[in-house]
Structures are given as structure tokens and as C-alpha cells.
């Protein structure tokens, strides 16, 4: 108990800290062990895995801070509530240099540590973490020169895909082989779209005249969702489909079938290029 103006008062600060510590000790392990494995995105690729790790860490750090605010709020609501009609001044609030210093140091340390960790993950750990890195990526994964190039072409309102190492064929469907480094070359023929392969952890803006490169290596076969993550017009919400990660043999069969299916149009396709400025872009504008 402390004494203010001759009146004995409970040690509210100690109580709040104690409640907060107990709740934090319960919540953080629950976040890491129970909620963490369900946070997005699924671990279909190393890049997606790094994103889930980041989400888990951020949530685990956020919860104690949020709990401190909530505990203080609820405690104040219960114990500092004034009843009756009279409005009385509370005890004067005085600064506490130690507490202020601790707060500044603690929050600065958290932010700086996150910045260092995030930068390491983005550049060295996950090599772009599935994000578009522009035409000249700053962080290239090992073996990037042998990555399978797949061009993603956004257009109002559909995605199409070109495989330059397979005769430059273009398809409506996207399939990639598992355990193979893939370099998505994302571009657009009209407005800005954003290629989002959710389970793969890939998200790259599709900008006209820009070859936006994102690397990914799928860990296992399966389906992944493709969405447009940039409001791009009337049917933006319909720019979605399912992509597939196939085993190597199945991928070869798929690409052979795609070649046959789209054979009639191949002679009319423009030569594969990193970006396109098709004639109607100028003609109809």
C-alpha cells in the first residue's frame, strides 16, 4: 500500500503489471503453439513459410503490448471509476524519468530488432520472400540462373501465362513443378494488376512495361489460389483461378498437353519479351 494525501492506497501499478505478466505468460505460448500454425499463408513454399513465421512473430510481440493496454483499461474502468455526482480532482500526475526511459528503450529495441530481423529475412533468408523485386532483383536465390521462367501477364480481366523455355507457349492455366525454383516474370498489358499466389506466398505487382520478378520454390504438389490484389476495374473481383504445383513428370505431361491445346495460336503470338506494348494499346487509347 502507498499513501497519498494521508490516504492509504493499493499499489495499482504492481497489480497491473502482475495481471499483465500472468496473461502474457498464458497468451504468448498459445499464440506461438496453437494459433501460429493456422496463421496465413500455408507453408506451400519456403517463401510462404517465412511469411507465416513473420506473422507468428509479429502476433506474439503484438499480444503483450495489446494486453498491457487492455489490462490497464479494464483495471482503470473497475478501480478508478468515480461514483456519485461530485466530480473530484484525482491525485496529481508526475513524470517518472525511469519509466519513460524504459518505455523509449523497450519500444525502440523492439522496432529495431524487427527491422533487422525483417531485413535479414527479406534479403538473405527468403530472397525476396515471394515478393516482386522489379526487373533487377536485389536478392537472388541460389541457382537463380537455372530457375524456370514463367511469365504472368495481367490484362483486364484475366491472367495468362507464358513459358519461354517451352516454345513461348501461352496458356490460361498456371502449373509449375515442385522442388524447382521458379522465376515469375509479372507484367501487364493495360492497367496495374497484382499477381497473388496465396499458398505460394507470391505477390507481385503487374505493371505495364515492367518485368517484375518474384522467385518461389514449391515444397509439395497441390492447388494454390490466384487472385488479383490491385483494384483494376469492373471484373477485378473475378480475376481469380486455381494454379497447380505438379510433380516433375506430371508437369512435363501438362506442358505437352498445353502445347497441343494452344497450338493454333502460337504463330500469332509476339516473340517472347520481358514486356509488351501491343498495337491496340496505342490504337485504342
Amino acid at each position, binding site marked *: 500500500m502507498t499513501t497519498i494525501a494521508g490516504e492509504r492506497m493499493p499499489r495499482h501499478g504492481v497489480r497491473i503489471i502482475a495481471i499483465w505478466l500472468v496473461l502474457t505468460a498464458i497468451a504468448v505460448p498459445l499464440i506461438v503453439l496453437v494459433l501460429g500454425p493456422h496463421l496465413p499463408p500455408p507453408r506451400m513454399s519456403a517463401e510462404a513459410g517465412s511469411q507465416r513465421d513473420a506473422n507468428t512473430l509479429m502476433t506474439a510481440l503484438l499480444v503483450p503490448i495489446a494486453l498491457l493496454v487492455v489490462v490497464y483499461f479494464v483495471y482503470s474502468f473497475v478501480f478508478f471509476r468515480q461514483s456519485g455526482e461530485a466530480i473530484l480532482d484525482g491525485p496529481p500526475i508526475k513524470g517518472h524519468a525511469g519509466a519513460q526511459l524504459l518505455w523509449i528503450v523497450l519500444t525502440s529495441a523492439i522496432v529495431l530488432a524487427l527491422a533487422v530481423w525483417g531485413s535479414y529475412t527479406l534479403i538473405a533468408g527468403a530472397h525476396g520472400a515471394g515478393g516482386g523485386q522489379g526487373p533487377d532483383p536485389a536478392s537472388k536465390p541460389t541457382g537463380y540462373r537455372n530457375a524456370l521462367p514463367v511469365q504472368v501477364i495481367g490484362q*483486364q480481366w484475366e491472367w*495468362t501465362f507464358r513459358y519461354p523455355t517451352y516454345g513461348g507457349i*501461352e496458356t*490460361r492455366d498456371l502449373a509449375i513443378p515442385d522442388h524447382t525454383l521458379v522465376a515469375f516474370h509479372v507484367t501487364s498489358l*493495360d492497367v496495374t494488376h497484382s499477381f497473388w499466389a496465396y499458398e505460394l506466398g507470391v505477390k507481385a505487382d503487374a505493371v505495364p512495361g515492367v518485368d517484375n520478378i518474384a522467385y518461389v520454390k514449391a515444397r509439395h504438389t497441390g492447388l494454390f489460389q490466384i487472385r488479383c490484389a490491385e483494384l483494376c*476495374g469492373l471484373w477485378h473481383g473475378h480475376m481469380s483461378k486455381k494454379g497447380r504445383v505438379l510433380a516433375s513428370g506430371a508437369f512435363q505431361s501438362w506442358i505437352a498437353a498445353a502445347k497441343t491445346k494452344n497450338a493454333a*495460336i502460337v504463330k500469332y503470338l509476339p516473340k517472347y519479351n520481358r514486356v509488351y506494348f501491343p*498495337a*491496340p494499346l496505342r490504337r485504342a487509347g
Partner: protein
Amino acid sequence: MSKAARALAVSAGVAFGVALIVYYIVSYLTVTPPGVAATGSKPRVHLTLQTVASYGNPPHADWVSYLARNPSGKWVHSTVLRVPSYSKVMVTIYQFDTATGLRNPFWGQPRGTIGGTMNVDGKTLNVLDPDLASHTFAIPDLGVSVPLKGVADDAKNQCSVAPCSLSEAHETVTFSFATGKPGKFRWQCFVPCAAGFPLGFGGPMQSVGWMDGYLMVQ
């Protein structure tokens, strides 16, 4: 104002706001736009459409547009099309507009049609030179995409006001596709044909009733 009166006023305000939100959501989920039904009956129906370079009537006389022919033979300015489920839909499109070319030549190959082909003026094709396309009729979620050949620039007797007559210069494109389970599917044109708009993709290309619509499979 007493506490009870204030509480009542606040409650009434909140209830009104909630009612508006619920009304909006229910209306959005249940509204069914009017449309044009295909002729014939399940399992084989016909859809007849036309494209015109400019609608020629208010509110946007100079906008490019699709029109649909209703079962009584009248041309209707609508792009909401009704077809039965699990049926074969025979489509005829009278193409009165001139060619502007496909931005992505990929759409020059008909896809999702029965047989993987289309028929242009009596000729069966499995691909159209992308530069000759004027529009496309595409239902992406059904995998259907058909390029529509444009009328030659120097063709005589070109149509200027919708609905166009078959005595005016046109190309006739026919194809068929199969429907499955009931659903509401968007359809659109992939040619940036909205002349005068940035990138050719404004106005009629962004508006249901002109170059976009719904296929209501029922």
C-alpha cells in the same frame, strides 16, 4: 432530455442504421437483373447477339455495345443472358463493327466451344488472325472465349445506329458451348474497343449492359 429519452433516441438511430445495412446486403444478394432468355428449350437453346460500333441512342450514343435478341425477335439493349443448365447453347453473333485487333493475340483462338472451333460466314475456323478481331465473346469461368471477326474498314453500307439490320455490312459468327450447373457467370469482351477512353478500356468496357454482362445459367 431525460436519460430514458436519450437511450431511446440512440437505440432508434442504431436500429435504423442496422436496418439500412441489412436491407442493402439482402438486396445485393437477392437482386436478379432483368435479362434476355435464350430461345428454344432445354437441352438445346439459341442465343442471338449483335455488336454495334455505336449504340446511337441515349444515354451514350457513341458507345460500342452488344445487343441481344429476345424470344419474340426484338433486339434488346441488355447483356444479361439467361440460359438453361446442362444444355447446349447455340450462339449466333452478328458482328457489325470494324476490326481494332486484339491486345493479346492469345485470344484469337476459340476456346471452350464444342469442337474447339467457331464458324465465320459459313467457314469453320480454329483460329482468327488477331488483327482481324473486332471483339470477343468470353465467359472466363466457363472457359469460353471466341474472337469475333470485324467488318472490313472499307465495307459499304456500314451500320451507324443500333439495332443494325442484316442488310447492313456484317460478319456472322456461330459457335456452341455447353452449360453445367446453375450459376451466375460474368462475360466480357477482351478487345480494348472503347474508343476515346484511356487504353480503350473505359466506359462501355467497364459497364454491364454494354461490353460486359452476366450469363445466368438457371
